[in-house]
């Protein structure tokens, strides 16, 4: 083991309370950042999934008959951007509804006839913006036999607005909490340095170079940043495992994706940034002290 790492570990052991508080505080900062990242990644996946195969339901007028279907399909396909097209008859739709609402079957039994319209479910190819989807829906609406087009315009528009708002505030919060992590490390290194002032003075007297003196502090900063990052992610993972299965199950009738944990790439990025901040906090502190 490198003598610098050995020395840093010894120093961490000797000042374990201060170092534990530091690592824990860094981990909380990283936890907040990671929560934002988790939200962004999952929200990003929803949008991406929608962009890569957004669904829309085309509800048809009562006057629709099956012999109109080939022409309708041709006209919809003619608009382009159609990945898949499935006709759902009113009877099939009622069957589906009965299955989905099995607990409220009494209500469905009282129905006189079938109030549901015939419909066509389409899967669209990629769209970059809600405006393009709206323009596409408008073109479908112009087909005479089409009654209405439902593509989740309400929730999608709101979701995108909230997502963008969260994104901006999320970036600001991430920056803020990264700064917090950095200043905490910087402060700990400063305290560690002052508590070892005599040691540094003696090291200089016996001919130690500045690199030899500073290296253990840098290793300590790196370790604090790394361990803080790992601990923050472990807390997030534990919380995620505790609540995600329940949340996914309760939301499954409404969403067709599962809430996933951070990707390996993001995990590595968070740990790298956290470790870097540990080092940078140390650098700032030593630069000021050893000026």
């Amino acid at each position: 083991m490198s003598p610098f790492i050995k020395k840093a570990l010894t120093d961490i052991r000797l000042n374990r309370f201060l170092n534990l508080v530091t690592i824990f505080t860094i981990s909380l900062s990283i936890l907040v950042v990671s929560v934002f990242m988790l939200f962004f990644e999952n929200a990003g996946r929803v949008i991406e999934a929608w962009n890569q195969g957004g669904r829309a339901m085309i509800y048809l007028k009562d006057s629709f008959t099956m012999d109109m279907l080939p022409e309708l399909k041709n006209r919809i396909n003619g608009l382009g951007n159609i990945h898949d097209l499935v006709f759902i008859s009113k009877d099939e739709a009622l069957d589906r509804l009965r299955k989905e609402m099995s607990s409220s079957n009494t209500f469905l039994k009282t129905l006189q006839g079938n109030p549901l319209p015939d419909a066509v479910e389409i899967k669209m190819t990629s769209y970059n913006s809600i405006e393009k989807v709206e323009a596409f829906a408008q073109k479908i609406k112009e087909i005479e036999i089409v009654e209405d087009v439902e593509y989740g315009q309400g929730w999608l528009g709101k979701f995108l607005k909230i997502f963008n708002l969260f994104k901006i505030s999320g970036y600001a919060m991430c920056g803020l909490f990264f700064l917090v992590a950095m200043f905490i490390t910087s402060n700990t290194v400063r305290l560690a340095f002052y508590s070892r002032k005599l040691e540094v003075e003696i090291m200089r007297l016996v001919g130690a170079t500045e690199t030899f003196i500073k290296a253990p502090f840098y290793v300590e900063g790196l370790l604090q940043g790394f361990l803080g990052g790992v601990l923050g992610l472990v807390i997030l993972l534990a919380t995620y495992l505790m609540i995600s299965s329940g949340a996914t199950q309760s939301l499954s009738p409404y969403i067709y994706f599962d809430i996933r944990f951070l990707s390996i790439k993001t995990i590595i990025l968070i740990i790298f940034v956290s470790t870097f901040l540990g080092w940078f906090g140390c650098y700032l502190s030593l630069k000021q002290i050893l000026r």
Partner: protein
Amino acid sequence: MNPDIKKNSIIRLFNVSKRYNGKFALKDINLDIEQGEFILISGPSGAGKSTLLKVLYLAERVSEGQILIDGMNLARISSSRLPLLRRRFGMVFQDFKLIPNRTVYENVALVLEAAGQKPDYIRKKVMQVLRTTDMDKKVKSFSPSLSGGEQQRVAVARALVGEPSIILADEPTGSLDAKSAQAVLDFIMEYHKKGATVLIASHNLHLLESTVRGRNIEITEGTIKRTATML
């Protein structure tokens, strides 16, 4: 040419002065020390003995004059080369200056670690020097658990482990009883016999004058008042 300047001088001071807030701690010091010489710097408290040692190992920069150590002009030494200069010295202080949360072994090994020596060499050399100073049975002890005499023996071991050419000792026996003081001086003298130059700033004239052969440089109010040969 100054007749006092000798051919094999290792330390030379030319008109060295050091001022603190305008007041002279050292004034116009000229000194020439030969390799292997033993120098006792004596004088009352506040005379400038410690300051003279400090300007030699560059804990303080001189206000005026020049110092040459083994041909190196201290005024021209950059901060990056300062560690190389300090490795030429072995230093002993009255307050020992040991790192309290490191063991005896670690305190002594620090010198060689700082010099980038290999672990095997460090282990061998540290144990050797600790045996010489009779501290090899306390390698795992921490300095606060040792007596003053033992701490100073560790400090001497640390000063000697890097095999420096110059030993600077500032009141090394100042806080020790007679027996411990004699032991510490004996270790330094033993090393001096191998050819090292030794400068000791001390009040303890009686002990030193009866132990060593060398020069006594008496300093008063920052100036050299008298130089005498001992024994």
